[in-house]
């Protein structure tokens, strides 16, 4: 059937901010969907509160609403736009839940909006565990034994039937939030209670444990003619019990006979038909007993997902794009396979390589969080790697993680006093579901455990274990014999996936020595194409990965076929992590777009399957490779065989590509834009201070130390509190504000670990200062301030975690002028060519320089969206040699206000304090945009999931320094009709100011205390500022309770003031919804 002509406008709902379980894969899918539907001539309306996405670039939709994704906001957009249809399957659970709410409350029907891609019934059937179970029973598919319960008694009954361990799954929560595995009755009761609370419908499923079973996922696409195809089968190396997002997975499935595979295929298709997913992509998950092969269905997602992004990248089949086209009426056979260009989309991709996906964790960011994996997802990112064999693919995945791994690096396993393996200890270590379990497996083999023993302890399929054992055996041989001296021997090792770095470690040499020995033997990788068809048809799309091939005698076949064009490489950011996420991918994608427009051939290198940058049509050529010096230099060498490599952009992908700058320079590969030396200068405290002295700029007093003793001396000289951090880190890793010498000593023992050989930096901390972020463009002779952002929280909270406003709200004109002056000086002093980000602190109208990063920063997409100026694109072209004067740059601040707010993953980490500090903790951001600050801030709060109350009780407890300021705020709240509740000190202050206030106890003062008040639902807003380690510890339970009960919580007076303004704006009536295109005159 051709496309539908009875609909002409379609609204797509995005996924909102990046959170654990919903990352940039939904930007990837949403971007594909927007492009696909626009290409078909539909009017596309988009709602997504996340400014760091490509999909919210104003050119991708006809009307782009950067507004909160809540049913009420989306309803207002529907009223304004009156679209014919809504596509809810591209924005993860957020979009699905929002669509469900709007369908259930009748809004869609009232406004005549048709759900396409998935209907209400299908969504409900797939998402409601009981309905799903019934549907599966109907088609004869076995589920784990289970029952749905809504209270403790029912839970106890259910437990009798399923036994321990038991799986608990709350209904309708994202990525399994609140779920878990209970091994004993106490855990069981705890998880059930928590799950019942977190489930929006207050039900949880108690389920038979299939822990240790093999886990598989099938990515299925169906069209409205009932054609069904399997895009990819994914096998989890980590067995059941670990969320698939946290599991190491491979594609295709590797341990199934055809009979088993076809059973799973038939079952997957039957599931789509029964659930009623008429068009689009879905993900179906199965567990298989390793002993008997018994197959049970676990769940299905009637939408594109993280796994479908992975499947798309793994096979070259663009699931989201195809799903969008199917949703408007096409059938699969009417659509082309873009990769071959000669075959239709109605086929099943087949691959001739092995794909490994490995999750990236950041437990180190959350002290107190247990680094254990469960059915609730904890990872913040992932890398994908491609190799011709599992061993090659696995080792590439390990070095793609950028956690310092070069392969199966050694880890500590328990040994007894004589250094002999404590088998019991090793086995216990293997049975723990932890992030680095594969390293433990390798270590166990080094210690002499057998495949059978490791399997018994880990339930990891022996097929994978044997390959790991083979890698370990090869390592032992290398250790014993050294590197092979012949080409064939070296080639065999490289075919195993060993990095030069790993070989260097194993042989006690440095990487350069191994690399040159390897190259001297003529052992270099070839590049194979990802073509959806295992070479059956020629691929017209240059989507490539490296492999070592051949017999060592003859030249191996390379399919790279570099062109004779002038080319620019863009190095991506690798796996997402806190501090380096979608914002940098946005910059890389913009660089690719801009440089293609400027006539260059663009070549993207990245290993993150979730991103837009790794879509095959973002750049002219795509290498899906680890971002290590070895992997990048090898592919540049191949590209240099034809045409000219004008240079590499390393400044857009965050810290990852920057780290490669030196190696690339040494290899004689040109780097575009600001020189790596200037970047180094900005990071090197001594060199940087010299520059500042020359420019006459002021910093907070500071020093550099390399020992604990030195640190004490310096801190005393500067005066406490001080900010202390290792050099060369991103996202404020291990950065802390230290108030006294005891904390300093504790810190110094940890910082040495965090910074390696690098020194530790100590800065004087400016209390109660306002922090300012500036993004700037420069071409080496001229600079342009692209955006000045005033932080709402005071200095001391990592800029990535602070809310900020563009334009600034409280800074005097003179201060802004001074900031502009200093920024221009720095751009000039560092000879910036491209982007630069500067952070200032303003105290008593005096401007202090905190940090300069002459590269793309996290705020670039926000500034671009807020001002309408495509600064990443301009920067890329400037780096390629164009002067700033050739671009149309805005000269005035916008007339509207944009507020950026951070989003945090604390709810995922039970027992972790949600207090903010100089180390970044947020996973994502939202933008609120409106005519004034109050409305923009209100939107940012709603979009980040904060339900600001318009009436009720406010709890206030502030440190002494804040007491004078809090009175006015309390008065205003009181006038609005809020009841005030405070602990003794604050209550006294407020009473003395003539305000009516109720007193409550602090947690340490006995019960009932403030947390009891909160638990009873008597508190609607919390304003709590603290200082000093003791006070912070005392208020921990308060913050945690606010978090788990979703009570708005402000830890700074400035934040509270902004919240009160926002509450005022909300009380005045509905917040307006306006598309970005109305705010911004220019287009991207």
């Amino acid at each position, binding site marked *: 059937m051709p496309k539908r002509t009875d609909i002409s406008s379609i609204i797509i709902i995005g996924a909102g901010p990046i959170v654990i379980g919903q990352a940039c894969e939904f930007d990837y899918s949403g971007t594909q969907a927007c492009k696909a539907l626009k290409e078909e001539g539909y009017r596309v309306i988009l709602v997504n509160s996340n400014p760091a996405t490509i999909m919210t670039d104003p050119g991708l939709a006809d009307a782009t609403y950067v507004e909160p994704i809540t049913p009420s906001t989306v309803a207002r957009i529907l009223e304004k736009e009156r679209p014919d249809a809504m596509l809810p399957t591209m924005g993860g659970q957020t979009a699905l839940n929002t669509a469900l709410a709007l369908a259930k409350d009748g809004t869609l029907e009232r406004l005549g909006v048709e759900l396409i891609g998935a209907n209400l019934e299908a969504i409900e059937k797939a998402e409601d565990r009981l309905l799903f179970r019934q549907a599966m029973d109907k088609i004869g598919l076995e589920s784990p034994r289970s029952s749905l319960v809504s209270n403790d008694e029912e839970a106890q009954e259910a437990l009798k039937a399923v036994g321990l361990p038991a799986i608990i799954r709350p209904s309708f929560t994202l990525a399994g939030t609140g779920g878990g595995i209970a091994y004993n009755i106490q855990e069981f009761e705890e998880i059930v209670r928590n799950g019942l609370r977190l489930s929006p419908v207050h039900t949880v499923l108690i389920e038979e444990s299939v822990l240790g079973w093999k886990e598989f996922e099938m990515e299925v696409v169906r069209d409205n*003619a009932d*054609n069904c195809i399997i895009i990819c089968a994914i096998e989890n190396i980590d067995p059941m019990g670990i969320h698939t997002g946290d599991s190491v997975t491979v594609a*295709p*499935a*590797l*341990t*199934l*006979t*055809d*009979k*088993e*595979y*076809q*059973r799973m*295929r*038939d079952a997957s298709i039957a599931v789509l038909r029964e659930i009623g997913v008429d068009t689009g992509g879905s993900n179906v998950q199965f567990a298989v*007993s*390793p002993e*008997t*092969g018994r*197959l049970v269905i676990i769940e299905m997602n009637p939408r594109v997902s993280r796994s479908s992004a992975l499947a798309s990248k793994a096979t070259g089949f663009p699931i989201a794009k195809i799903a969008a086209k199917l949703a408007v009426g096409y*059938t*699969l*056979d009417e659509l082309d396979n873009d990769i071959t260009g000669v*075959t*239709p989309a*109605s*086929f*099943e*991709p*087949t*691959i*001739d*390589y*092995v794909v490994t996906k490995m999750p990236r964790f950041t437990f180190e960011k959350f002290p107190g969080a247990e680094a254990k994996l469960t059915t609730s997802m904890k990872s913040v990112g992932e890398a994908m790697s491609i190799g*011709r*064999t*599992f061993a090659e693919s696995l080792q590439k995945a390990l070095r793609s993680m950028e956690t310092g791994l070069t392969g199966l690096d050694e880890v500590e396993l328990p040994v007894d006093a004589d250094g002999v393996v404590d088998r019991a200890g090793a086995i216990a270590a293997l049975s723990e579901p932890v992030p680095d379990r594969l390293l433990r497996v390798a270590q166990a083999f080094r210690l002499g455990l057998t495949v059978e023993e490791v399997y018994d302890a880990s339930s990891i*399929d*022996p*097929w994978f274990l*044997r*390959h790991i054992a083979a890698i370990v055996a090869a390592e032992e041989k290398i250790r014993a014999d050294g590197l092979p001296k*012949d080409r*064939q021997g070296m080639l065999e090792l490289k075919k195993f996936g060993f990095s030069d770095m790993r070989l260097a470690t194993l042989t006690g040499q440095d990487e350069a020595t191994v690399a040159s020995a390897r190259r001297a033997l003529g052992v270099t990788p070839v590049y*194979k194409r990802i073509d959806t*068809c*295992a*070479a*059956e*048809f020629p691929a017209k799309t240059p989507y490539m990965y490296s492999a070592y*091939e*051949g*017999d*060592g*005698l*003859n030249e*191996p*076949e390379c*399919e790279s076929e570099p062109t004779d064009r002038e080319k620019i490489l863009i190095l991506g950011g690798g796996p997402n992590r806190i501090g380096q996420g979608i914002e940098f991918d946005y910059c890389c994608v913009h660089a690719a777009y801009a440089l293609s427009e400027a006539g260059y051939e663009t070549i993207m290198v990245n290993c993150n399957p979730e991103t837009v940058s790794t879509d095959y049509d973002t750049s002219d050529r795509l290498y899906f490779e680890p971002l290590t010096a070895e992997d990048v230099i090898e592919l540049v060498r191949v590209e240099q065989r034809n045409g000219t490599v004008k240079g590499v952009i390393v400044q857009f992908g965050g810290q990852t590509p920057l780290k490669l700058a030196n190696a690339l320079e040494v290899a004689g590969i040109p780097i575009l834009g600001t020189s790596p030396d200037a970047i180094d200068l900005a990071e090197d405290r001594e060199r940087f201070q010299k520059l500042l002295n020359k420019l006459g700029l002021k910093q907070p007093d500071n020093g550099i130390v390399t020992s604990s003793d030195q640190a004490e001396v310096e801190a005393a000289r500067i005066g406490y509190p001080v900010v202390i951090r290792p050099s060369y880190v991103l996202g404020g890793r291990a950065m802390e504000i230290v108030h006294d010498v005891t904390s300093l000593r504790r810190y110094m023992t940890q910082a040495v670990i965090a910074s390696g050989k690098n020194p530790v930096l100590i800065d004087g901390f400016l209390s109660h200062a306002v922090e300012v972020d500036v993004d700037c463009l420069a071409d080496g002779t001229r600079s342009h301030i692209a955006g000045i952002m005033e932080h709402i929280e005071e200095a001391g909270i990592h800029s990535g975690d602070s809310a900020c406003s563009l334009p600034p709200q409280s800074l005097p004109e003179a201060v802004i002028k001074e900031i502009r002056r200093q920024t221009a000086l720095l751009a000039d002093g560092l000879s910036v060519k491209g982007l630069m980000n500067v952070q200032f602190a303003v105290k008593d109208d005096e401007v202090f320089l905190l940090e300069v990063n002459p590269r793309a920063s996290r705020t670039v997409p926000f500034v671009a969206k807020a001002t309408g100026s495509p600064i990443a694109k301009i920067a890329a072209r400037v780096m390629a040699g164009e002067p700033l004067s050739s671009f149309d740059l805005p000269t005035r601040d916008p007339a509207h206000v944009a507020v950026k707010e951070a989003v945090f993953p604390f709810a995922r980490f039970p027992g972790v304090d949600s207090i903010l500090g100089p180390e970044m903790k947020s996973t994502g951001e939202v933008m609120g945009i409106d005519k004034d600050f109050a409305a923009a801030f209100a939107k940012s709060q709603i979009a980040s999931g904060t339900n600001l109350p318009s009436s009720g009780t406010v709890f206030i407890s502030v440190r002494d320094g804040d007491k004078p300021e809090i009175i006015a705020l309390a008065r205003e709240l009181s006038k609005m009709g809020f009841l005030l509740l405070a602990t003794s000190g604050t209550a006294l202050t407020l009473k003395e100011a003539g305000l009516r206030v109720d007193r409550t106890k602090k947690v340490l003062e006995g019960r009932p205390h403030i947390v009891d008040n909160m638990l009873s639902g008597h508190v609607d807003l919390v304003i709590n500022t603290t200082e000093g380690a003791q006070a912070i510890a005392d208020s921990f339970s308060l913050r945690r309770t606010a978090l788990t009960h979703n009570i708005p919580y402000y830890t700074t007076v400035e934040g509270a003031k902004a919240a009160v303004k926002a509450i005022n704006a909300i009380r005045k009536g509905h917040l307006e919804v306006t598309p970005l295109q109305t705010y911004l005159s220019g287009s991207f």
Partner: protein
Amino acid sequence: MADALATDPGHKAAPAKPDGATAALILSDGTVFWGRGLGAARTTVGEVCFNTSMTGYQEIMTDPSYAGQIITFTFPHIGNVGANSNDVETATPHSLGLVLRADMTDPSNHRAERHFDDWLKSVNLPGISGVDTRRLTRRIRDGGAPNGVLCHAPDGNFDIPALRKQAAAWPGLEGMDLAAKVSCTQSYAWDGSTWAFGADDTEGYQPAPAVRHRVVAMDFGAKRNILRNLVALGCEVTVVPANNAAEEILARDPDGIFLANGPGDPAATGAYAVPEIRKLIDSGKPVFGICLGHQMLSLALGARTEKMHMGHRGGNHPVKDLTTGKVEITSQNHGFVISEGTLPDGVEITHRSLFDGSIEGIRVTGKPVFSVQYHPEASPGPKDSHYLFQRFVDLME
């Protein structure tokens, strides 16, 4: 495609051999692929083709249609699930060996009964691993399926010039009647039904249901799963040799006649089978053909067949049912095809490949006679096309 391997001067001198090479694949143009030997230590000569399936290697190796062929698996890891006694399509495989990218590992699957390498030895099939199978596949894609010699020599001694001669001398599949070699020589009854998963006591090949129809299957190299599918639908199946006369077949008074798949050039096999098939069509009884059976039926109807450039072999081939507009993902294994424009009036094209548009299914107007080029019995592959067996049975109602 630039192929450094083929540029050995005049193919006269034996090329250097990599250390440890115990197997070689020598193509008729002189190209040598070195690797490690597996399976039986022997030398075979045949056509080198590739299959893009990622599962079902044991079914593929035992599919009689691969007679005369050395199979390159495009997926690097083969042997993962070992071998078992159930996933076989014929008692004695007729394929000539296999070419792999990665060395085999020990099996890991609860259905595995033995190592796949042991199984290869037990059925006397040689193999080679360590080959850049993607390079070989691209070569087949661009240059057509070459003839070649697969030699597994554990002692590492290879007489390359002699092997090259052997490869070049092999006449090729065109004109080769292989059905006669793989067909049964005596008729027999088949009563095994299809496989089903289930609890321990019910898992396996299922008991045959009550017989409702009698089918005679002409064996050109039948895959067992075709016969199983017929039995599962209530057919009593008698398998007869490829050279059985129509009179003998009709004397069994079948309700329907099935023309099985098989290897080789349909034109060669057709020399003796086509006249018999014509008589079977004229009998008015339902006739259903698969693969070679489809080609023979077409020949009997007056069409011509031709050798394809590289053939269709894999489990992901989209075929459109022109009568319904639906797309089936099919299992395929054929190197010959009906020539476009040679089907007579009264024969309707019902299915076409969405990969290359080639003819994948036909039916005779006004007669209960139809056939498909692909494999609705799957094994290995998707079961989207199982409905065709029901269609055949319905014609017998």
